[in-house]
């Protein structure tokens, strides 16, 4: 059995509060030891060595919010291309969203996703299944069966569960399985046909706006329902002052709530829409500076537990339409880590330990998967990061099938250089 020794890297593992320069030994697909001398190593076989001098060695990054296209959206992405993009972004595990066609609401589709992921043999893929049958928000899906098939969490993806009674019932039902309900908080009567954040920019551009309260009102609703049922709720892609304030207070009261933010929502504002570029059109929309500041504050004080990419590929021809016809969404797997470095770590908002925590152990705990840690005996999923890498976003070089990134042409810092999944090097950056 071959082993892998990672030397001279700065090992940062938030799950153990570890941050020191040391060597890390991987044996038989597990984390075997720290502080190992290079010449000792394993006697059972070859010891491959990776010199990580000047680099960070972190638990394999986890993204709990990525749409991978299959089944039904193969024009946008496939599980193969999506997991390749994930590896390039430094992720060893991703949870894939069920807004597929057909949606992931049966054993068959869960198993299909798992099979495709196994065939692609890139990173781990954990299926998220629908809360409601067919994702139409009327009847509960067979969540027990789906848990048995391998679903780790439940969500109607980019559709809100508009019926509060159904949401309440779903939260109660999931208590049996101790799985989280991932909520997309949006009151559609308020978001209407909006294409961007409602504010001074939308007034000037005369584009219909999505007001902040479209999110905050449903966040408040979900908190009440989680509180009264005792259910476990996770708020996806939070973007507003109002929502963050409500979540902060709910946590203080002991509500079992966690929340995520996407890199897009703490790094870009609604000013980006002045170009009318549909690659800046997402839901929830890019908001005003006050909301961006609140997201950063929420990350700092722990109100926002997780950074999740919200990767939503859309084929080029779909985005190359009039702004109101272009679908929402941007790709994000290949830029997420670098945006975290460029917009949070380098400006001093978060240190590496805190930032990595939100991309490793925290999402692992929400999903209930045994990942996101470098404790001895843990699965050998490791991401080696070059914190000083400087690169320019060139969509032609991306692995994702789609090109709808809001960062085209931007210079970003920090990038995964080597990604190890189950003890095997699955990705190495050449340039």
């Amino acid at each position, binding site marked *: 059995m071959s082993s892998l020794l990672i030397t001279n890297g700065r090992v940062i593992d938030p799950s153990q509060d570890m941050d020191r320069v040391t060597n890390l030994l991987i044996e038989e697909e597990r984390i075997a030891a720290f502080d190992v001398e290079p010449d000792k190593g394993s006697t059972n076989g070859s010891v491959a060595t990776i010199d990580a001098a000047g680099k960070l060695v972190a638990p394999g990054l986890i993204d709990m919010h990525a749409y991978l296209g299959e089944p039904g959206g193969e024009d946008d992405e496939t599980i193969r291309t999506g997991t390749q993009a994930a590896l390039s972004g430094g992720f060893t595990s991703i949870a894939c969203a069920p807004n597929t066609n057909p949606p992931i609401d049966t054993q068959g589709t869960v198993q299909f996703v798992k099979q495709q992921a196994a065939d692609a043999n890139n990173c781990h893929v954990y299926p998220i299944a629908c809360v409601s049958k067919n994702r139409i928000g009327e009847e509960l899906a067979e969540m027990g069966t789906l848990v048995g098939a391998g679903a780790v969490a439940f969500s109607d993806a980019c559709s809100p569960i508009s019926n509060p009674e159904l949401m309440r019932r779903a939260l109660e039902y999931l208590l049996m399985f101790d799985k989280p309900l991932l909520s997309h908080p949006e009151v559609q009567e308020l978001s209407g*046909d909006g294409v961007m954040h409602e*504010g*001074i920019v939308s*007034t*000037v*551009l*005369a*584009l219909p706006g999505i007001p902040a309260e479209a999110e905050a009102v449903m966040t408040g609703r979900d908190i009440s329902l989680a509180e009264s049922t005792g259910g476990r709720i996770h708020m996806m892609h939070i973007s507003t002052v109002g929502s963050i304030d409500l979540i902060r207070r709910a946590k203080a009261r002991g509500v079992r709530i966690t929340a995520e933010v996407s890199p897009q929502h703490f790094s870009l504002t609604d000013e980006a829409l002045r*170009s*009318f570029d549909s690659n800046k059109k997402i839901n929830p929309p890019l908001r005003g500076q006050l909301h961006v500041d609140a997201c950063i504050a929420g990350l700092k004080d722990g109100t926002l537990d997780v950074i999740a990419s919200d990767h939503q590929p859309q084929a080029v*021809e779909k985005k*190359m*339409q*009039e*702004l*109101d*016809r272009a679908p929402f969404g941007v790709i994000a797997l290949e830029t997420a880590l670098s945006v975290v470095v460029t917009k949070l770590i380098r400006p001093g908002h978060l240190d590496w330990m805190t930032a990595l925590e939100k991309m490793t152990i925290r999402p692992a705990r929400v999903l209930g998967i045994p990942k996101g840690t470098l404790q001895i005996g843990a699965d050998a999923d490791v991401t080696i990061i070059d914190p000083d890498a400087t690169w320019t976003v060139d969509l032609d070089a991306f692995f994702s099938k789609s090109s709808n990134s809001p960062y085209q042409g931007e210079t970003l810092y920090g990038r995964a250089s080597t990604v190890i999944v189950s003890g095997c090097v699955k990705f190495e950056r050449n340039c």
Partner: protein
Amino acid sequence: MDKTIATDNWTQADLLGLEHLSAEEITTILDTAQQLKGMTNGCAKKIDLLQGTTVANLFFENSTRTRTSFSLAARRLGADVIDFSSAGSSLSKGETFIDTAKNIEAMNVDTVVVRHRTPGTPHLLAKNIRCSVINAGDGAHEHPTQGLLDIMTIREHRKKIKGLTVALIGDISHSRTARSNIWGLKKLGAHVIVCGPSTLVSRRWEELGVEVAYSLDAILPRCDVLNLLRIQFERQITRPFPSVREYALLYAMTGERMANAKDDILIMAPGPINRGTEVTPEVADGPHSVILHQVTNGLAIRMAVLYLTHEVAR
């Protein structure tokens, strides 16, 4: 034929809006329009400045007067004009609008005049085709030639824009005419007031130095110019005010209201006007109304814009 028209200050192959134009650029268009108006004997005579060129009207929204105005302007300058409207076209066969535009470009069209219900569509076109793109209205975002002809009309009657108080009355939120006027007038130093129902006039405009008012009667005595926007029933989805009658009660420019207006106030409207809703016949046809001058100036402005953009593009 004196063809010397100063175009040094104009460097753009497209006209997408007034928001990002400088005062000098706006003035250049106005001066060129004035000159062309003179050369064509008040827009009546043909001259050959755009001989041999082709202008395509690409109208995804219904329009008779703007399209006719652009067509006439192009023909007055000697250009060939082709008309393309979305009804009954390849768009209904599933062609995207970008592909439609590229097909038109492939016919070696020089200039595309585009109107579309979605803001930013002319910008998207300009990025994807080599032709000059003139925005004839993109949703409620901008209608630059309308803003320019309104300003030209004011300038003709008042000799200046700076220091004037110009009020835009009506459904500001859905009005591209209002937005283009706001940008152009502010660049040239006017004080701009937007006035209408609180459901249709956002306080956010104050952040940009525009005065927001809900009562026409309260602001009327201060106004040098009133621009009466048409209530756009076809663009509204939810009812922001209870009835046409109520709107007229609060905002229609009537003979009675005229008594409280300045002696030299100018009454303007982008048209078509709803007689009795925004303005009564006695005011629309009265001595203060310059509505028909706007139409003539529209022709001059469009000639100027077609000419100036083509000069840069070629």
